[in-house]
C-alpha cells in the first residue's frame, strides 16, 4: 500500500535541463583563439645612426592619406590592385642581389618579373615602405598590410611549389609540427630568405 502512495518522481527531463545549461555555456564562453597580423618592430636606432642609402628603384612606396586613399609609387590605386603591383615590384629581379658577408647573392634566378631596370633589383633588396597619416583609419592600414603580406605569401608559395612541390603554408605547418627536422628547417629558411618580407612603416605625418 505504501509503495503505491509514493510513486517514483520522473527525472527524465533533468538531463534535458542540464543539457540546455551545458549548451548555453558552450555557446557563450569563448576559448577564443587570438589571431593577428604579426609584425616585428625595428630596434631603436642609436643617436648618431645614419640610415643606409637605398636606391630609389628598390623602394616601393605606399602612401595612405587621411581619407584612406592609396597612392602607390605616385599613382592613385585601388586596394584590390595593390597585391599585383607589389608582386610585380618584388619579383622584378632587374639586377644584382645584396652582398652579405662578402658573398654576393647575384641576380635573382627564380624571379619571373619583367627585369625592368627602373624597378627592384632583387627580392632581398626590395623594400616596401608604408607611409600613413595620423588620421588614417586603422582598418585601411591593416588591409594594406594584409595585401602586402598576401603578395609575399603568393610568391613564396610559388617558389616552394617549384622547388619542393608543396605550398609554403604546408611546408611551414609541417615544420611547426616537427621542429627538429633539419631538412624541413632548411627548406623553410631557403624560401624565407629568397623572399624576405621587408615592410617598413614610417612615422605617420600629422596632416
Amino acid at each position, binding site marked *: 500500500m505504501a509503495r503505491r502512495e509514493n510513486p517514483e518522481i520522473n527525472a527524465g527531463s533533468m538531463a534535458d535541463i542540464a543539457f540546455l545549461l551545458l549548451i548555453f555555456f558552450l555557446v557563450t564562453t569563448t576559448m577564443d583563439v587570438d589571431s593577428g597580423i604579426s609584425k616585428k*618592430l625595428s630596434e631603436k636606432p642609436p643617436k648618431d645612426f645614419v640610415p643606409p642609402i637605398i636606391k630609389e628603384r628598390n623602394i616601393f612606396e605606399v602612401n595612405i592619406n587621411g581619407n584612406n586613399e592609396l597612392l602607390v609609387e605616385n599613382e592613385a590605386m585601388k586596394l584590390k590592385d595593390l597585391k599585383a603591383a607589389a608582386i610585380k615590384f618584388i619579383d622584378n629581379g632587374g639586377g644584382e642581389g645584396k652582398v652579405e658577408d662578402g658573398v654576393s647573392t647575384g641576380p635573382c634566378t627564380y624571379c619571373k618579373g619583367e627585369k625592368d631596370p627602373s624597378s627592384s633589383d632583387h627580392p632581398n633588396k626590395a623594400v616596401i615602405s608604408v607611409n600613413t597619416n595620423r588620421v588614417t583609419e586603422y582598418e585601411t592600414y591593416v588591409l594594406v598590410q594584409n595585401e602586402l603580406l598576401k603578395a609575399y605569401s603568393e610568391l613564396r608559395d610559388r617558389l616552394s611549389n617549384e622547388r619542393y612541390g608543396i605550398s609554403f603554408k604546408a611546408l611551414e605547418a609541417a615544420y611547426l609540427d616537427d621542429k627538429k627536422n633539419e631538412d624541413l628547417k632548411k627548406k623553410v629558411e631557403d624560401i624565407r630568405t629568397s623572399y624576405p618580407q621587408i615592410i617598413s612603416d614610417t612615422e605617420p605625418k600629422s596632416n
Partner: protein
Amino acid sequence: MSKFGKKKKGLPAVNTAALPDIVFMLLFFFMVTTTMRETELKIQTPKLPSATEVKKLEHKSLVSTIYVGKAKTEKQGKGDKIQLNDKIATAEDVPAFILNERTLVSEAEIPFMTVSIKADKKSSVGTISDIKLKLRDVNALKLSLSTQKGSEIKQ
C-alpha cells in the same frame, strides 16, 4: 500468447537517473575551465578589422594585450582610448605596463613576449603609432595586430 504477454510486463525501463549527473559534470567542467573574459573592458569593445594573412597567437601567458577603442561614456572624453589592464591610460603609460608584465614571466621567456594590439577598426593610425614608439623604447618588439580571420576584400 501468454508467453509474449509475460515478456512485455517484465521489460524494465532503462534507468537514466545517472544521465543528469554526467551532464552536470560536463557543465561544471565548462564553467570552471572557460573564461568569460579576462579583463573588463572600460572602452567600447573594439570591432577588429579582418585580414586573411593571420597567425595564431601561441603561449597565452606571454601575451600582453593593449586595447584601443572609443570611450564607453561621454565622461571619458572623445577620441581613441587606450586600455592597459583595467584602466584607461595614455601611450605614456605603455612602458610601465610592459615592464610590469615582464616581472610576471621568467627571464628566459622575455624575448618571446608578444604585445597584442586589439584596436577598433575606426581608430586612427596615429594612436597605434604612438604605442609602437613607446614599445620600441622598452624593446618590446614582437607585435601582433589582432584581427578577425576574414574573407577577401570587397572593394
